[in-house]
């Protein structure tokens, strides 16, 4: 536990921390890119770069396979820290193409943060100064924090404070989320669960307004995460709480936004590693003292 609490932990990013961050990022990225490669069948509504160039050539089995193979090789090079300027830029391009194909299928998963964190890292590696070890993480955090800040601006611009006042109407979104699961699985208990959650919200308006006000504050001040490692961790924990709340009440999980945020700000795999390491040391000390 000392490792978790010492000053170094809160100021610097260790090598193992950085590697575990990259492994987590690539694991999720590969999963998302694979899903797009398998599921993109045609271009229904050309958007982004697909509105400028003909992206249908990327829909064939061959081009999808090449794209997936490229993503796999790039992930391996990224984790092993090879040719980082070129690799991070190519990962940005693969991401840009994959997720634009997904959006051109009418599925708006808003994976923009995932794509842009690679470009932010390209900038950090081009600069390649003494602060590289911090900037390759802090630059992506700037993009992620920007995304949450934009979400807050969007809410305030569209609804103003009515976003909080009308929060109980989120009961509709809650039952909608659970209805999706019902019509996917046929499991009626999912629909019942949604109706119960909606009923709870309609009966506890003040509590719901308070929770929504808190989440709006978290998003509005997400930019504080760029200050240093401690603030990134604190904001990351608060935003994670917000996402888990959305998942519990609305059955909605915004994967493409949640994953880059938790990986760069909280880095749960490193937290797990640190706890296991601390526990191992504790056991080792116990064994030594008993001898």
């Amino acid at each position, binding site marked *: 536990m000392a490792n978790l609490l010492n000053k170094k932990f809160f100021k610097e990013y260790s090598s193992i921390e950085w590697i575990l961050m990259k492994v987590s990022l690539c694991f999720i990225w590969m999963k998302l890119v694979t899903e797009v490669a398998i599921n993109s069948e045609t271009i229904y509504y050309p958007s982004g770069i697909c509105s400028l160039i003909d992206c249908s050539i990327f829909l064939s089995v061959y081009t999808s396979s090449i794209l997936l193979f490229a993503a796999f090789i790039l992930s391996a090079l990224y984790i092993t820290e090879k040719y980082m300027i070129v690799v991070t830029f190519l990962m940005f391009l693969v991401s840009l193409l994959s997720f634009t194909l997904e959006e051109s299928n*009418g599925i708006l998963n808003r994976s923009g943060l995932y794509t842009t964190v690679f*470009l932010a890292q390209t900038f950090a590696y081009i*600069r390649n100064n003494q602060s590289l070890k911090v900037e390759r993480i802090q630059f992506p955090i700037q993009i992620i924090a920007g995304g949450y800040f934009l979400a807050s601006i969007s809410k305030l611009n569209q609804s103003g404070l009515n*976003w909080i006042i009308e929060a109980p109407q989120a009961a509709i979104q809650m039952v909608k989320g659970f209805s999706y699961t019902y019509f996917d699985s046929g499991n009626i208990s999912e629909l019942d669960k949604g109706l119960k959650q909606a009923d709870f919200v309609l009966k506890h308006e003040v509590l719901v307004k308070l929770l929504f006000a808190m989440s709006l504050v978290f998003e509005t001040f997400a930019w504080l995460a*760029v200050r240093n490692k401690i603030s990134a961790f604190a904001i990351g924990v608060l935003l994670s709480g917000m996402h888990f709340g959305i998942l519990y009440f609305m059955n909605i999980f915004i994967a493409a936004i949640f994953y880059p945020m938790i990986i760069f700000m909280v880095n749960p795999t490193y937290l797990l590693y640190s706890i296991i390491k601390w526990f191992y040391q504790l056991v080792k000390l116990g064994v030594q003292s008993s001898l």
Partner: protein
Amino acid sequence: MSKYLLLIFYVLISILIGKEFHPFSTFPMYNSFPNYGYVFFLKNEKGEIVTFGRNFSKSKNAGYIAHTFYSLCEHYGFNYGFGKENSEDLKKAGKEMLEMILYNEDEERFNFDSLKLYRRFYFLENKKLKYRDDLMYGQSLK
């Protein structure tokens, strides 16, 4: 480089573009809680629910179908939301959505002869949750 430079760039460019242009977005999801919510579902000739998960490819889930409805309405400039779509627009959207659902599916293995696409319209009335089901489009498969 300033600690905030990339953040400022990303926010400003996204606001200037003002629409979805990957990787830029204004992240408008749930930026308001209007008094309506749509869910789309299928029924067979017997009036039984045809689940997406058991009958179609993994990607064609209820969430995906809902996304396509909004993209389609934006694409054609339909006036949508609050259950106000006219029956003509609803039918046109339903036809295209059903085509998307059936695209690249092996219809031979279906254990139903026809499909009807419905839209469930959830809304609040006197603080009570209510819904209405509207038929969008029906199609025979055999």
